[in-house]
Protein backbone atom coordinates (compact mmCIF):
# COMPACT_ATOMS: atom_id res chain seq x y z
CA UNK A 1 0.00 0.00 0.00
CA UNK A 2 1.42 3.41 -0.92
CA UNK A 3 2.01 6.00 1.76
CA UNK A 4 -0.62 8.71 2.20
CA UNK A 5 0.84 12.00 0.87
CA UNK A 6 -0.02 13.80 4.13
CA UNK A 7 2.25 11.44 6.06
CA UNK A 8 5.24 12.34 3.89
CA UNK A 9 4.38 16.06 4.06
CA UNK A 10 4.21 16.05 7.86
CA UNK A 11 7.62 14.43 8.25
CA UNK A 12 9.07 16.89 5.72
CA UNK A 13 7.48 19.82 7.58
CA UNK A 14 9.02 18.72 10.88
CA UNK A 15 12.47 18.47 9.27
CA UNK A 16 12.04 21.88 7.64
CA UNK A 17 10.97 23.48 10.94
CA UNK A 18 13.98 22.13 12.80
CA UNK A 19 16.43 23.07 10.03
CA UNK A 20 14.93 26.56 9.71
CA UNK A 21 13.88 26.07 6.09
CA UNK A 22 10.80 28.33 6.15
CA UNK A 23 9.91 28.13 2.41
CA UNK A 24 9.93 24.32 2.53
CA UNK A 25 8.00 24.35 5.79
CA UNK A 26 5.25 26.57 4.36
CA UNK A 27 5.04 24.45 1.21
CA UNK A 28 3.69 21.54 3.29
CA UNK A 29 0.40 23.34 3.96
CA UNK A 30 -2.48 24.36 1.71
CA UNK A 31 -2.22 28.02 0.57
CA UNK A 32 -5.49 28.74 2.41
CA UNK A 33 -4.36 27.05 5.60
CA UNK A 34 -6.29 27.80 8.78
CA UNK A 35 -4.00 27.15 11.76
CA UNK A 36 -5.50 27.20 15.24
CA UNK A 37 -3.20 27.57 18.25
CA UNK A 38 -4.55 26.91 21.76
CA UNK A 39 -3.64 28.51 25.06
CA UNK A 40 -3.06 31.98 26.39
CA UNK A 41 0.32 33.04 25.04
CA UNK A 42 2.01 35.15 22.37
CA UNK A 43 1.13 32.76 19.54
CA UNK A 44 -2.41 31.69 20.53
CA UNK A 45 -5.12 32.36 17.98
CA UNK A 46 -6.00 31.56 14.39
CA UNK A 47 -3.62 32.11 11.47
CA UNK A 48 -5.00 32.20 7.93
CA UNK A 49 -2.84 31.65 4.86
CA UNK A 50 0.84 30.88 4.55
CA UNK A 51 1.95 34.45 5.20
CA UNK A 52 0.25 34.56 8.58
CA UNK A 53 1.48 31.05 9.29
CA UNK A 54 5.06 32.16 8.66
CA UNK A 55 4.53 34.76 11.40
CA UNK A 56 3.57 31.98 13.81
CA UNK A 57 6.70 29.95 13.08
CA UNK A 58 8.96 33.00 13.31
CA UNK A 59 7.44 34.10 16.63
CA UNK A 60 7.94 30.63 18.12
CA UNK A 61 11.62 30.74 17.14
CA UNK A 62 11.94 34.30 18.40
CA UNK A 63 10.45 33.42 21.81
CA UNK A 64 12.74 30.42 22.19
CA UNK A 65 15.88 32.15 20.94
CA UNK A 66 15.99 29.94 17.84
CA UNK A 67 16.13 26.73 19.88
CA UNK A 68 12.71 25.30 18.97
CA UNK A 69 12.84 21.84 17.41
CA UNK A 70 10.24 19.34 16.33
CA UNK A 71 10.51 15.58 16.03
CA UNK A 72 7.63 13.94 14.20
CA UNK A 73 6.86 10.70 16.06
CA UNK A 74 3.87 9.37 14.14
CA UNK A 75 1.38 10.44 11.49
CA UNK A 76 -1.94 8.73 10.84
CA UNK A 77 -3.96 9.80 7.81
CA UNK A 78 -6.94 8.76 5.76
CA UNK A 79 -8.63 10.59 2.89
CA UNK A 80 -9.89 13.64 4.74
CA UNK A 81 -8.42 13.60 8.23
CA UNK A 82 -4.98 13.23 9.74
CA UNK A 83 -3.46 13.13 13.19
CA UNK A 84 0.15 13.63 14.07
CA UNK A 85 2.09 13.07 17.27
CA UNK A 86 5.22 15.14 17.72
CA UNK A 87 7.77 16.07 20.34
CA UNK A 88 8.50 19.78 20.62
CA UNK A 89 11.44 21.17 22.52
CA UNK A 90 12.49 24.74 23.13
CA UNK A 91 14.50 26.78 25.60
CA UNK A 92 13.67 29.97 27.40
CA UNK A 93 15.59 31.68 30.19
CA UNK A 94 17.96 28.73 30.37
CA UNK A 95 15.24 26.13 30.92
CA UNK A 96 14.27 23.49 28.36
CA UNK A 97 10.62 22.62 27.81
CA UNK A 98 9.61 19.39 26.12
CA UNK A 99 6.03 18.90 24.99
CA UNK A 100 4.22 15.95 23.47
CA UNK A 101 1.76 17.42 21.01
CA UNK A 102 -1.21 15.86 19.27
CA UNK A 103 -2.09 17.67 16.05
CA UNK A 104 -5.20 17.25 13.97
CA UNK A 105 -5.71 18.11 10.34
CA UNK A 106 -8.15 18.15 7.46
CA UNK A 107 -6.44 17.88 4.14
CA UNK A 108 -7.05 18.51 0.47
CA UNK A 109 -7.51 15.01 -0.98
CA UNK A 110 -5.94 16.09 -4.28
CA UNK A 111 -2.46 16.56 -2.84
CA UNK A 112 -2.67 15.76 0.88
CA UNK A 113 -1.88 19.31 2.03
CA UNK A 114 -3.74 20.17 5.26
CA UNK A 115 -6.00 23.22 4.99
CA UNK A 116 -7.09 23.22 8.62
CA UNK A 117 -4.88 22.30 11.56
CA UNK A 118 -5.54 22.39 15.28
CA UNK A 119 -3.47 20.91 18.06
CA UNK A 120 -3.11 20.35 21.79
CA UNK A 121 0.10 19.83 23.82
CA UNK A 122 0.24 17.51 26.81
CA UNK A 123 1.08 20.49 29.06
CA UNK A 124 -0.65 23.66 27.95
CA UNK A 125 0.51 25.82 30.91
CA UNK A 126 4.13 24.86 30.05
CA UNK A 127 3.55 25.94 26.45
CA UNK A 128 2.04 29.22 27.69
CA UNK A 129 5.16 29.89 29.74
CA UNK A 130 7.54 28.97 26.92
CA UNK A 131 6.00 31.34 24.39
CA UNK A 132 4.58 33.92 26.79
Amino acid at each position, binding site marked *: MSEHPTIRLMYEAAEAFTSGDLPRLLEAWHPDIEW*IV*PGHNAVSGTYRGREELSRFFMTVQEKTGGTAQVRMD*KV*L*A*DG*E*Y*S*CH*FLTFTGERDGATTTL*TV*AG*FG*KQDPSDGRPY*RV*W*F*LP*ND*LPAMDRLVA
Partner: protein
Amino acid sequence: MEHPHIETIRLALKAYETGDREEMERFLAPDIVWHVGGDHRLSGDYRGRDAVLDYYETIRSETGGTLQLEPVSIMADDEHAAIFMRVTGKRGSKKLDTVLAEALRLDRDGRWLEYWALAEDQPAVDAFWGGAR
Protein backbone atom coordinates in the same frame (compact mmCIF):
# COMPACT_ATOMS: atom_id res chain seq x y z
CA MET B 1 -6.77 -4.80 6.46
CA GLU B 2 -8.20 -2.97 9.45
CA HIS B 3 -5.97 -2.80 12.51
CA PRO B 4 -7.49 -4.73 15.47
CA HIS B 5 -7.22 -1.65 17.71
CA ILE B 6 -9.90 -0.01 15.56
CA GLU B 7 -12.50 -2.57 16.64
CA THR B 8 -11.38 -2.12 20.26
CA ILE B 9 -11.97 1.61 19.92
CA ARG B 10 -15.46 1.01 18.51
CA LEU B 11 -16.27 -1.16 21.53
CA ALA B 12 -14.93 1.51 23.90
CA LEU B 13 -17.06 4.19 22.26
CA LYS B 14 -20.10 1.94 22.57
CA ALA B 15 -19.38 1.40 26.28
CA TYR B 16 -19.04 5.16 26.73
CA GLU B 17 -22.28 5.86 24.91
CA THR B 18 -24.23 3.35 27.00
CA GLY B 19 -22.64 4.58 30.24
CA ASP B 20 -21.21 1.16 31.09
CA ARG B 21 -18.49 2.15 33.58
CA GLU B 22 -17.34 -1.42 34.21
CA GLU B 23 -17.02 -2.19 30.50
CA MET B 24 -15.30 1.14 29.84
CA GLU B 25 -12.77 0.47 32.58
CA ARG B 26 -11.16 -2.39 30.67
CA PHE B 27 -10.17 -0.07 27.79
CA LEU B 28 -8.29 2.38 30.01
CA ALA B 29 -4.77 1.88 31.39
CA PRO B 30 -4.68 2.41 35.19
CA ASP B 31 -2.37 5.43 34.86
CA ILE B 32 -4.07 7.03 31.87
CA VAL B 33 -3.58 10.77 31.34
CA TRP B 34 -6.53 12.52 29.74
CA HIS B 35 -6.09 16.00 28.20
CA VAL B 36 -9.27 17.94 27.52
CA GLY B 37 -8.63 21.00 25.38
CA GLY B 38 -10.48 24.27 25.21
CA ASP B 39 -11.43 26.95 27.69
CA HIS B 40 -14.39 25.60 29.60
CA ARG B 41 -14.88 24.34 33.12
CA LEU B 42 -14.10 20.72 32.23
CA SER B 43 -10.90 21.59 30.32
CA GLY B 44 -7.63 20.37 31.75
CA ASP B 45 -5.91 17.13 32.66
CA TYR B 46 -7.38 14.07 34.36
CA ARG B 47 -4.92 11.54 35.76
CA GLY B 48 -5.72 7.91 36.49
CA ARG B 49 -8.59 5.63 35.46
CA ASP B 50 -10.92 6.63 38.28
CA ALA B 51 -10.57 10.34 37.49
CA VAL B 52 -11.35 9.68 33.83
CA LEU B 53 -14.37 7.50 34.64
CA ASP B 54 -15.64 10.19 37.02
CA TYR B 55 -15.19 12.72 34.20
CA TYR B 56 -17.34 10.50 31.94
CA GLU B 57 -20.05 10.41 34.59
CA THR B 58 -19.99 14.19 34.90
CA ILE B 59 -20.45 14.48 31.13
CA ARG B 60 -23.33 11.98 31.12
CA SER B 61 -25.00 13.61 34.08
CA GLU B 62 -24.71 17.16 32.71
CA THR B 63 -26.11 16.16 29.31
CA GLY B 64 -28.79 13.84 30.66
CA GLY B 65 -27.32 11.01 28.60
CA THR B 66 -28.09 12.81 25.34
CA LEU B 67 -24.53 12.81 23.96
CA GLN B 68 -24.25 10.75 20.81
CA LEU B 69 -20.99 9.77 19.15
CA GLU B 70 -20.84 9.08 15.45
CA PRO B 71 -17.34 8.15 14.30
CA VAL B 72 -16.35 9.78 11.00
CA SER B 73 -12.89 8.27 10.87
CA ILE B 74 -10.91 5.92 13.11
CA MET B 75 -7.22 5.29 12.40
CA ALA B 76 -4.79 3.14 14.37
CA ASP B 77 -1.51 1.34 14.36
CA ASP B 78 0.15 -0.63 17.17
CA GLU B 79 0.91 2.39 19.38
CA HIS B 80 -1.32 5.27 18.32
CA ALA B 81 -4.86 5.97 17.23
CA ALA B 82 -7.00 8.88 16.12
CA ILE B 83 -10.74 9.29 16.20
CA PHE B 84 -12.70 11.98 14.41
CA MET B 85 -16.33 11.86 15.38
CA ARG B 86 -19.47 13.91 15.21
CA VAL B 87 -20.72 14.66 18.70
CA THR B 88 -24.25 15.84 19.31
CA GLY B 89 -26.04 16.47 22.57
CA LYS B 90 -28.05 18.80 24.75
CA ARG B 91 -27.35 20.48 28.06
CA GLY B 92 -30.32 22.44 29.30
CA SER B 93 -31.21 24.80 26.48
CA LYS B 94 -27.80 24.45 24.82
CA LYS B 95 -27.14 22.17 21.88
CA LEU B 96 -23.86 20.77 20.62
CA ASP B 97 -23.06 19.53 17.13
CA THR B 98 -19.39 19.41 16.22
CA VAL B 99 -16.58 17.14 15.07
CA LEU B 100 -14.34 16.15 17.96
CA ALA B 101 -10.76 15.12 17.20
CA GLU B 102 -9.16 12.66 19.58
CA ALA B 103 -5.61 11.32 19.66
CA LEU B 104 -4.62 8.25 21.63
CA ARG B 105 -1.41 6.64 22.73
CA LEU B 106 -1.96 2.92 23.31
CA ASP B 107 -0.30 0.11 25.21
CA ARG B 108 0.38 -3.33 23.68
CA ASP B 109 -3.13 -4.52 24.51
CA GLY B 110 -4.70 -1.46 22.92
CA ARG B 111 -5.58 0.13 26.27
CA TRP B 112 -5.55 3.92 26.32
CA LEU B 113 -2.44 5.40 27.96
CA GLU B 114 -2.82 9.03 26.96
CA TYR B 115 -5.62 10.93 25.30
CA TRP B 116 -5.95 14.38 23.75
CA ALA B 117 -9.27 15.90 22.63
CA LEU B 118 -9.95 19.13 20.82
CA ALA B 119 -12.97 19.98 18.70
CA GLU B 120 -12.84 21.29 15.19
CA ASP B 121 -15.08 24.09 16.45
CA GLN B 122 -13.73 24.46 19.98
CA PRO B 123 -15.46 27.80 20.72
CA ALA B 124 -18.80 26.01 20.23
CA VAL B 125 -17.75 23.38 22.77
CA ASP B 126 -16.55 26.08 25.19
CA ALA B 127 -19.93 27.81 24.94
CA PHE B 128 -21.75 24.49 25.45
CA TRP B 129 -19.98 23.73 28.74
CA GLY B 130 -19.52 27.30 29.88
CA GLY B 131 -17.03 28.74 32.33
CA ALA B 132 -13.32 29.11 31.84
CA ARG B 133 -10.61 26.86 33.09
